[in-house]
């Protein structure tokens, strides 16, 4: 056997070497910014230097040809430096305002929409799905592509009351994260267990320990050590599936989509909030998931029409109250919206504050 190469445990590289020269020069010394148009940021340093940033949407999962194309645009129409936002938007930095319009034109010509700044709907933060995940209930890139096609106007314009962050997740672990509107798989049936495989594949005590409602117990099935589920207790979360793939939770028919709204990580105005369940039972319908898009667009339209300037979705609901949210969106309020998990009494209305 040939000698193996020892890794150089270099960790995170120094970012300074990749900064645009103006960003390096004015590091920690910026004074203010404005947005000349959607998709463009203009930052001014204390010393008077100015930098323009053009933001464009990408498909996140990029073939190297796409990345090379973006590099060509950066070299020919910007200044060879780019960065990415956490929502997979690419940003090109330039030192002169005159470079902004030709850069935008070139990006649009090559199919990269310019936008995602300020009070727009930015690119959807998403997961891997069928492309690469080992436990996905659906695809991610496809659902995102289909929805962004429909929301393109809201990406390229700043017409929302405040910024809108969306996410999608292919299972209830919610790797896509908290968002103003989050689209998350919600399983509706307990896992189907392949008892022939459990003993060989699963560390049973680990699986038992993963269940949040203690619904799993060791059992002997057909003479083989396996696991059984108390289906009356099971909340169909899928937590047992990653450590025990024979406990198949994904179901082409019964794994549905749920929509959650009002998540916000910024501290601006009200404290950060978690998103709340508003709709579920939406079919998992590739390749374009039209039913999901319809629910999301309806919520966005009502929010756009009804919220006041600077209200994030959570600020808006805080002002109008949840009963009006359900009324205005037309979404049905069901018993499943009333929380019964730990701490749930704090989510009940312990007052006579009611809007009529």
């Amino acid at each position, binding site marked *: 056997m040939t000698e*193996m*190469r*020892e*890794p*150089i*445990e*270099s*960790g*995170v*590289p*120094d*970012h*300074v070497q990749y*900064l645009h020269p103006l960003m390096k020069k004015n590091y*920690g010394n*910026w004074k*203010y*910014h404005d947005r000349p148009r959607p998709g463009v940021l203009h930052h*001014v340093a204390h010393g008077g230097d100015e930098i323009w940033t053009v933001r464009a*949407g990408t498909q*996140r*999962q990029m*073939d*190297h*040809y796409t*990345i*090379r194309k*973006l590099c060509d645009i950066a070299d020919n129409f910007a200044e*060879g*430096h*780019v*960065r990415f*936002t*956490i929502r*997979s938007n690419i940003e090109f930095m330039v030192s002169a305002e005159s470079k902004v319009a030709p850069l935008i034109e070139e990006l649009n010509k090559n*199919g990269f929409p310019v936008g995602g700044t300020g009070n727009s709907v930015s690119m959807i933060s998403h997961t891997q799905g*069928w*492309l*690469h995940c*080992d*436990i996905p209930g659906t*695809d991610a890139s496809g659902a995102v*592509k*289909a929805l962004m096609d429909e929301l393109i106007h809201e990406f390229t314009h700043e017409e929302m009351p405040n910024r809108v962050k969306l996410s999608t997740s292919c299972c*209830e672990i*919610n790797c896509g*994260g908290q968002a103003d509107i989050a689209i998350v798989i919600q399983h509706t049936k307990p896992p189907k267990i392949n008892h022939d495989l459990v003993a060989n594949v699963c560390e049973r005590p*680990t699986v038992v320990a993963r269940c*949040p409602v203690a619904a799993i117990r060791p059992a002997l099935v057909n003479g083989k050590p396996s696991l059984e589920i108390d289906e009356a207790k099971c909340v169909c979360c899928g937590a047992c599936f990653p450590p025990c*793939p024979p406990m198949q939770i*994904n179901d082409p028919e019964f794994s549905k989509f749920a929509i959650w709204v009002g998540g916000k*990580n*910024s*501290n*601006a*105005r009200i404290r950060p909030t978690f998103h709340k369940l508003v709709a579920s039972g939406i079919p998992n319908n*590739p*390749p374009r998931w039209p039913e999901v898009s319809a629910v999301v667009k309806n919520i966005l339209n009502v929010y756009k029409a009804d919220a006041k300037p*600077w209200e994030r979705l959570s600020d808006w609901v805080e002002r109008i109250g949840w009963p009006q949210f359900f009324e205005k969106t037309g979404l049905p309020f069901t018993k499943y919206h009333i929380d019964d998990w*730990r701490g749930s009494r704090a989510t009940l209305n312990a007052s006579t504050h009611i809007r009529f």
Partner: protein
Amino acid sequence: MAKKQYDTPMLDQLESGPWPSFVTGLKRLAKDNDMMVDLLGQLETSYKTKKGYWKGGTVGVFGYGGGVIPRFTELKDEHEKPIFPDAAEFHTLRIMPPGGMHYTTDLLRKFCDVWEKHGSGLIALHGQSGDIMFQGATTANVQIAFDEFNEMGFDLGGAGPAVRTSMSCVGAARCEQSCFDEARAMRSTVNNFLDDMHRPALPYKFKFKFSGCANDCVNSIQRSDMAVIGTWRDSIQTDDALGKKWFAKHGMDELVNDVITRCPTKALSLKNTADVSKAEGISSVALNDSQSLQIENHNCVRCMHCVNVMTGALAPGKDKGATILIGGKSVLKIGATMGTVIVPFMKLESDEDFDALNELGQNAIDFFAENALEHERTGEMIDRIGLVNFLEGIGVEIDPSMVLHPRANPYIRTDGWDEEVEKAEQRKANAA
């Protein structure tokens, strides 16, 4: 030229429309890459059956225990042979990007060259943990590709029960709200825990995230076990020229409705400039020749709203630093939890300040390693043992900023009350 592509009528429907299409990208790669031909075959199958077909396994690079996400196909025929053999192994390398995700085109092209040669050519910028995800390598090519990235100065990120890849916002590089050097803090912290990253041995994952202000653009409060969020202790800085410019453009309606009434602690008020308080802790910005916006800084919670609306006219103070919150995580197992305040304020300027941040991280991880149950996140552990036990474990003193309100039930044994009062007096004396 690669082998013939399969018909993909489902995926083809994702090639139309204005948003960039990943399917078009996959097909471009498949023109001269058999792995991508078969990847498209498997993905189309998933779209038809609504099922995933990947399983994990054990693939890594020499010297490390994590950082590669192994994927083997489970889509097999009756003889256990992969139906799409050229994509039977489709592993991902997680590579850590620089803080703020800045790149030169030269660097991105080098990444492309390596991945075109040794992988599928598919790169995700970026994964939800912040990694550059080089997706699609055979088991044999994982080491070869890693060696080339590693020689370029890049290193594997985290996976499994380990310290994970981190993120920092654009921050000081291009944002006026930056309250500390986010990328430096991220780099120095993560690089202090490379052993815990590359050789997974913790009870479960541990994530750090770094945001330069309370807008928290990397979502540290909800997505990290230890969130470092920029803030300041002194008064909001003001610029009269920019204040007047803002007011001339936006007017009284917007000032009242969008700025003053949206302050969560009612720390803003409209004043005749002659009546602006001269008291300590008050700052103000001119709106026109006679009126000013007055800020009561001791009642400001640094939420960032007014600073966001009136950027430049209002700005974070000069005495900057960070608030540290611990315990944020997603759903499993107890439900999502946010980080809560552990250190209300710490300076992040000198080398010693950054050392102190590292020490806090080290104490938190050491305590987590010794006390968390298997597969338990830090937030769940704190939920189980109580905040006070955690604070005592990591050597941090209590502070009223850690709670929304004091206890609302009497179920506590308080026979150590006098002793605790003495400690409180001592803390007060030490702080003075």
